[in-house]
């Protein structure tokens, strides 16, 4: 099935990549990947492990380099220069699987560090915004705690707040709930849903198919470094077009 009813040429593209290729040594880990994310759109990236989905999302904010192709984020082309990297990182917020909070700083300081030192914001303004975001993720009571004193779900919510401090145009989520105990997964997914509903553009790498069904505008299935299938969630889950996607969906539903 190809060709589509909604072509977002009129909406501005926040992330635009074409012909992206990357190698680890001889291993071809990203093969001719082309994808576009429109403003306000939510894309879920899924696929078996080793499919390159984490690598792809990390290329978007420059944590990984690609060798061939074009990648444009918010009209900034990533050309390998430090300048373009710095500019892109101001527009893209990232949430990691392992939270990566700074353990030697309080929750508040974790949030304000980037604002003060990378965006040169005055402290008072940064602190006020941080309080607002902490309220938004329902962690106001933990403002003065250290990450080591929080549960996994709380830490990830702090990580989301930290990324939101950048006021990013696109949020990147790299398997945000994979490292969490099951009972804490939903508190993080709730925050992400609230974000999605408020119109934040996001690309989410996840296995949480329930989240994909309810939030995603597009589900992109990757395998062995290439995009195998991309479709809105209803058609992807009910009627996968490729055999590989079908097999993957079968595996996932058996697991849950």
């Amino acid at each position, binding site marked *: 099935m*190809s060709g589509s009813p909604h072509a977002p040429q009129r909406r501005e593209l926040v992330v635009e990549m074409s012909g992206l290729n990357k190698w680890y040594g001889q291993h071809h880990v990203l093969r*001719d990947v082309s994808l576009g994310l429109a403003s306000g759109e939510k894309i879920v990236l899924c696929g078996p492990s080793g499919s390159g989905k984490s690598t792809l999302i990390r290329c978007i904010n420059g944590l990984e380099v690609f060798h061939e192709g074009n990648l444009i984020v918010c009209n900034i082309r990533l050309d390998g220069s430090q300048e373009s990297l710095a500019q892109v990182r101001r527009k893209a917020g990232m949430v990691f699987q392992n939270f990566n909070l700074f353990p030697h700083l309080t929750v508040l300081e974790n949030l304000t560090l980037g604002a003060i030192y990378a965006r040169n914001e005055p402290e008072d303004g940064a602190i006020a915004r941080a309080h607002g975001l902490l309220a938004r993720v329902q962690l106001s009571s933990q403002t003065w705690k250290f990450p080591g004193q929080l549960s996994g779900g709380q830490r990830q919510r702090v990580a989301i707040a930290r990324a939101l401090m950048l006021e990013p145009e696109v949020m990147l989520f790299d398997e945000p709930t994979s490292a969490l105990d099951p009972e804490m997964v939903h508190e993080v997914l709730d925050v992400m849903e609230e974000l999605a509903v408020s119109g934040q553009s996001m690309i989410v790498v996840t296995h949480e198919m329930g989240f994909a069904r309810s939030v995603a505008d597009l589900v992109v299935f990757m395998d062995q470094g290439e*995009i195998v299938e991309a479709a809105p969630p209803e058609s992807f889950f009910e009627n996968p077009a490729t055999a590989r996607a079908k097999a993957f969906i079968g595996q996932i539903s058996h697991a849950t």
Partner: protein
Amino acid sequence: MSTAPRSFARPASSPPRLPPADVRGVRAFLYTHLFQSPLAGVFTFLLGAVVILALWHIARWSVVDAVWYAPDNSAACRTATGACWAVVAEKYRVILFGAYPYDEQWRGGLIIAIWLAWGAASATSLLAVGTRLAGWALVFIATILLLKGGIPGLAPVGTDLWGGLPLTFIIFGGTIAGGLPLAILLAIGRRSELKVVRFLCVATIEGVRGIPLLALLFFAALILPLFLPPQLTVDKLIRAEIGMIVFFAAYAAEVVRGGLQAMPEGQDEAAKALGLGYWLRMRKIILPQALAIVVPALFNDIIRAFKNTTFFSILGLFDVLGATKAALQDPNWVRYGTEGYLFVFLLYFIICSAMSLYGASIERDTQRRVRRAN
């Protein structure tokens, strides 16, 4: 720029390609590691030029202009501009064997060969740990017998004539052989519930760790004879060895204690539940696991023990360093001390590097085993 279609399906996968030339291979390596930017490139060139110049000078001094053999009492060396390695050719017997009688030096050579051979054999993973340890015990005993003599076929040689590499090996072997059991006892004692035992162990460990090794050796060499009755004279070598053993034990005890602390409590509880008494628990369950955990950390102390054998030269004994110092007193060769010490430098470097590589490989093996067990 084209936008991807909203729905997309690729039934067949396209074949993987090889990376383009500037991603793999030598060029990629050069770009990522040496020439990341024009500034980095210039810096690499300058530094590289300095390094090459230095290496050229060193090569010229130590190889090209060097004199390797000067039978006529260093006359050839005096006129040469390069290194005088003839001092090594001339004095190697003293450096390697000390004052050991010339006719018996083959025994020293045999000892060195045995140590190297068993060291190499232990480094491969062919033999079980128990076999290796047993082998080392045999090597140690054989070394003492060969050095001492006194058995049919081997003329007796007094300890005051022992020297060189065999002496270094014996000191090292004795330190480990005596120090490890003592370290284990001290570590267990430090965790004991008996207040007196714990206090004694803590005092010993902290006291010994606070003073220099030299002080301990001097204590052992000078003061011990005063505290022993005159009938009980102990050889200076043995006295100094006791000092080394105590020093090694104090440091190793802390490492072993770390291993004991890292053991999950469940092990001891399970052993207790099985009705095993204290010493049986220790021997069969706790100690084997704790020791396995700390072997990599112990290696640092073991290598340091090998390097510390040089301290015996200060006491007037003729380990490799002491023997070299004595050899270089020869007025004909005294001005080539630099070359002599460089040779000793190289000798220790090879042995210690080998041990350190071995320790690193043990560490990797332990980590692999731990990962598999979890």
